């Protein structure tokens, strides 16, 4: 087996691409990221490890926009992410130039997935070590979409998904609690899902929202996030209290 995981991505005797699987391991070690699609809102929430005091937090944004109507969050190797994001941004503009139309979410996802696949089938390169969550609204029709890609180059559309650290538990939570929602409800669901694995608090979560009416990605302020987290905590406490039963009269 050791012979089949060196520099080039080649098949092992039992049909595995070890480099790709190792890349998925790298993803599993990355920060947790959650994406939720609502009827008129799409939300991305990413775990933020505590920023060192001297670091300028604006330069370490984890959720980026690829175009006015498309945003991306990823889990895995951040340096690989930068390269992939730059290529995707160029492709968005190139599409606008040749087709005179903004890209659809599916198109840019297919492009990114295609890039990731290319690097699993070329000589002398290793796969990108990241999975991405891509959200956005299609131009003209304004249909919201959420897509996920992974290092092997596959992609699919989701109603809600998570990637990175503890993504399985987040996905389980989402499967139990997902409902078609809109506006603030969608944001709350995304934050609730992320709070399953992340310490609660505005400074540990980065959230960005895109709505059908507005253009552009809106990054939520820490204060806003704190407020929503407080709401969620209150709801949780109320649910616990209700479970324990009404207070006994003395």
């Amino acid at each position, binding site marked *: 087996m050791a012979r089949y995981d060196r520099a080039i991505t080649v098949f092992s005797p039992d049909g595995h691409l070890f480099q790709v699987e190792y890349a998925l391991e790298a993803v599993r070690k990355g920060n947790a990221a959650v994406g939720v699609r609502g009827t008129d809102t799409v939300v991305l929430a990413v775990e933020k490890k505590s920023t060192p005091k001297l670091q300028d937090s604006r330069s370490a944004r984890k959720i980026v926009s690829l175009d006015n109507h498309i945003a991306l969050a990823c889990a895995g190797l951040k340096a690989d992410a930068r390269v992939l994001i730059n*290529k995707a941004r*160029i492709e968005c503009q*190139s599409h606008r130039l*040749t*087709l*005179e*139309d903004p890209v659809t979410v599916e*198109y840019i996802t297919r492009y990114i997935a295609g890039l990731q696949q*290319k690097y699993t089938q070329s*000589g002398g390169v290793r796969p990108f070590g990241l999975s991405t969550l891509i959200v956005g609204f299609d131009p003209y029709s304004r249909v919201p979409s959420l897509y996920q890609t992974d290092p092997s180059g596959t992609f699919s559309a989701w109603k809600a998904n998570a990637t990175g650290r503890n993504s399985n538990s987040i996905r389980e939570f989402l499967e139990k609690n997902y409902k078609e929602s809109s506006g603030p409800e969608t944001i709350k669901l995304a934050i609730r899902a992320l709070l399953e694995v992340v310490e609660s608090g505005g400074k540990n979560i980065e959230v960005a929202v895109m709505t059908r009416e507005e253009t552009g990605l809106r990054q939520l302020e820490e204060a806003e996030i704190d407020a929503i987290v407080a709401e969620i905590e209150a709801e949780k406490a109320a649910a616990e209290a209700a479970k324990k039963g009404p207070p006994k009269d003395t």
Partner: protein
Amino acid sequence: MKSSHQPSQSWPLVAGLPGAQETIYSFFSPSFVTLSYFSFFFSLNPFSRFDYFKSLKMKLDTSGFETSMPMIGFGSSSDMLDGFSTVPSFDLPRTTDFDGFQKEAVQMVKPAKGTTTLAFIFKEGVMVAADSRASMGGYISSQSVKKIIEINPYMLGTMAGGAADCQFWHRNLGIKCRLHELANKRRISVSGASKLLANMLYSYRGMGLSVGTMIAGWDETGPGLYYVDNEGGRLKGDRFSVGSGSPYAYGVLDSGYKFDMTVAEASELARRSIYHATFRDGASGGVASVYHVGPKGWTKLSGDDVGELHYHYYPVAPATAEQVMEEAAAE
């Protein structure tokens, strides 16, 4: 690998039909090239004859139609060019003054685009009309050319300039539009299609293409009309007329145009404009075809012979009967 031996006596075999030996070799062509790496003694007379034959072929490179394996590592720009086809290369002619020769060639091929085509956007969609005469200088080579090309069920292109160029490039555009549909699960927009065509024509700029076309269609944003020509120019507009008869067509079209016309009124305006252009312009004539592009695609509305249209618009008043002189009965 290649032997330097130039067998002059093999000329007749190569220039004419391949002899039995060549045919056999041509079947096994790939393996011979690789074999010659390994086995030196294989570079005998027969094989060098085969190489000679290959060198006579035109180096026309059709990689523009196939997607090539992208190169990773050095060429980051190659990722950007993945969507564009490469320009084919061809052998240059042997002249003393190549630049002058090139100019002459372009001038010779540059015809005056003898035709009349027009298209305009109105309330109910796009109206497209054209004549059907093809002329070679003063000779009318055909009166029944289809100058409105159906790219796909919701897009039309008009032909002006070189007939072969227009037909080929519109068909090529149709292929690209279909591939876009298949890849993106939605139709291409009119602006996108015209952009693809304009980019292709721009890459052949100066090589003697003659195309003056209008792309008309209906997409998500409503009716669309673009003018694209062989210089690589692309204009968005509401009313266009292209060809040698266009000044006459513009006269009638511009004076009769209103945005709020019905389909019947607009088709009559288009038909009249083509008729007047064919009346005054020698290079236009034949049949005036009128198409309408609506939200559900295009439909052909009419195709009237312009000769008949003339008498339809200007019926001949019956002349007073002349006295018919009868022959005197023979005695």
